[in-house]
């Protein structure tokens, strides 16, 4: 008899999550763990995890991991992949990490077309530090550092970093997905599978942006947060494949 709710092989067993109820991190962790098993990658994987809530991802993912300083994940992943091209290397980063402090590393690793995968969790706020404005915060959205709502006159516009890197020749695959419902989760798994396959096939850099709920900092219930992703966030960040330059293999 098969235990249907068992954790996948590369997810630690019987762990209690520190993530808030309704947070998207746990869902994406599980998808990653499932794919590493299904694609037979877990044994040769090194994951670079970020500063932010997912700094504790090592408590859940049962693979070799390297902690990164805030924003530096793709530079570290570059170092790993360049000296050990046989390893499967991915970074797991939030929007504060990837799109603010790590913008330069994100842009240049993508522009070099490093053979790495980037899992980009976009929840439109700085989660761990208490819900400050992120580069991805929506216009009008209230955060602790934009209490009157984000005003483009003073705080600029939501940064579409995935669209930026998708325009680079070295970025083979970029897709924006969400995890606010069973169908969305399945699409996210498919997208991450495609991204992982790009590296396996030696095609190059891939990035999957996941719109992910943060009920605690959005001051919403999990259900409201899931709805808000569809009704508000997707208007600013539409889902879909942003680039697909996969060819016949390297």
């Amino acid at each position, binding site marked *: 008899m098969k235990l249907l709710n068992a954790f996948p092989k590369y997810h630690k067993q019987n762990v209690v999550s520190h993530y808030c109820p309704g947070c998207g991190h746990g869902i994406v962790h599980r998808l990653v763990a499932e794919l590493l098993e299904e694609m037979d990658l877990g044994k*040769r994987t*090194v994951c670079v995890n970020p500063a932010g809530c997912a700094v504790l991802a*090592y408590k859940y993912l049962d693979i070799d991991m390297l*902690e990164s300083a805030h924003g530096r994940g793709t530079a*570290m992943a570059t170092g790993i992949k360049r000296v050990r091209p046989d390893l499967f290397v991915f970074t797991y980063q939030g929007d504060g990490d990837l799109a603010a402090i790590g913008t330069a590393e994100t842009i240049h690793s993508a522009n070099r077309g490093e053979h790495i995968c980037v899992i980009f969790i976009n929840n439109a706020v700085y989660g761990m530090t208490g819900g400050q404005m992120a580069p991805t915060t929506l216009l009008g959205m209230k955060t602790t550092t934009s209490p009157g709502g984000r005003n483009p006159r003073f705080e600029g516009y939501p940064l579409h970093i995935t669209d930026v890197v998708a325009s680079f020749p070295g970025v083979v695959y970029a897709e924006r997905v969400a995890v606010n419902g069973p169908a969305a989760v399945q699409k996210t798994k498919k997208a991450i599978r495609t991204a992982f396959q790009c590296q396996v096939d030696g095609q190059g850099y891939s990035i999957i942006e996941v719109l992910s709920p943060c009920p605690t900092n959005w001051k919403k219930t999990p259900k409201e947060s899931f709805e808000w992703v569809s009704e508000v966030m997707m208007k600013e960040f539409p889902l879909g494949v942003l680039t697909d330059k996969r060819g016949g293999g390297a």
Partner: protein
Amino acid sequence: MFLQSESETAAINMVIGASAVGARVMTSSSSPGISLKQEGISFLAGFQLPAVIVNVMRGGPGLGNIAPAQGDYFQATRGGGHGDYRTPVLAPASVQEVADLTYKAFDIADHYRTPVMILGDGMLGQMKEPVVFPEPIAKLPEKDWALHGRGDGPSRYLASLILDTTEMERHNWMLVRKYQEITANETSWEEYMTQDAQIVAVAYGTTARIAKAAIKRVRKDGVPVGLIRPITLWPFPTPALQELARRVNSFVVFEMSTGQMLEDVLLSLEGKGTVHFHGRPGGVVPTPAEFARILYREYQLKVKASS
């Protein structure tokens, strides 16, 4: 393998990544770039990852200039980045020694699992001298801690985040024990004409070479000066200075800064003897004649006057 990065910040983090999977890896920059690398050097210390960082010092602060200087001594020897750690610092004074100490830096880094800094200056960085390369070591040390995918074993995690305060304290004391071991085993210095010296000059790197030339001059006039040249700036050769202080009363510190190593000399001497400082900051390279004048004067004031 060589990889050009977009920034010093990215470079040091590429180094962290490569080191984490077991590669021997180094990065090089000049003063302002080293400030940018300090974040990563702190992480290397926390992760206990080996790496070699070369700083070819230039005039500062800020952009300063691109002339030889020694103003980054504090930054190099006091850790440099945030947190409670030390970085072994090797200070070559010739191109041959640049080569020798680079080999040694990698060995120290691997043996103690620590970042190691090679601290040169703009003079050494642009100097051409013949070099005999040391024999490469036949077999690199095993790195059983390196990440390479978990394989069939348990997963591993390299981290500097230790949220539990007592665990963090234990980690810090463990690092201290490592630094004590490095201090006991790796402290190195050169003594030059100290046997009969009544005045001892203290200088490192390019400044030490200039001091040697000055000492040769004053020795011709019978002025008994010697030199102690720290090769490791951290750990500092305190035992050598304390030993000399048993019979020498007069020390002269030469630096291309406003007085940074001076503080380590004062700490090492613990109040024994007198210490005179002569420094030229800002990229000005002092001359042997200039140092010789200082040594003649020191001899007249301190040694002849009291004899």
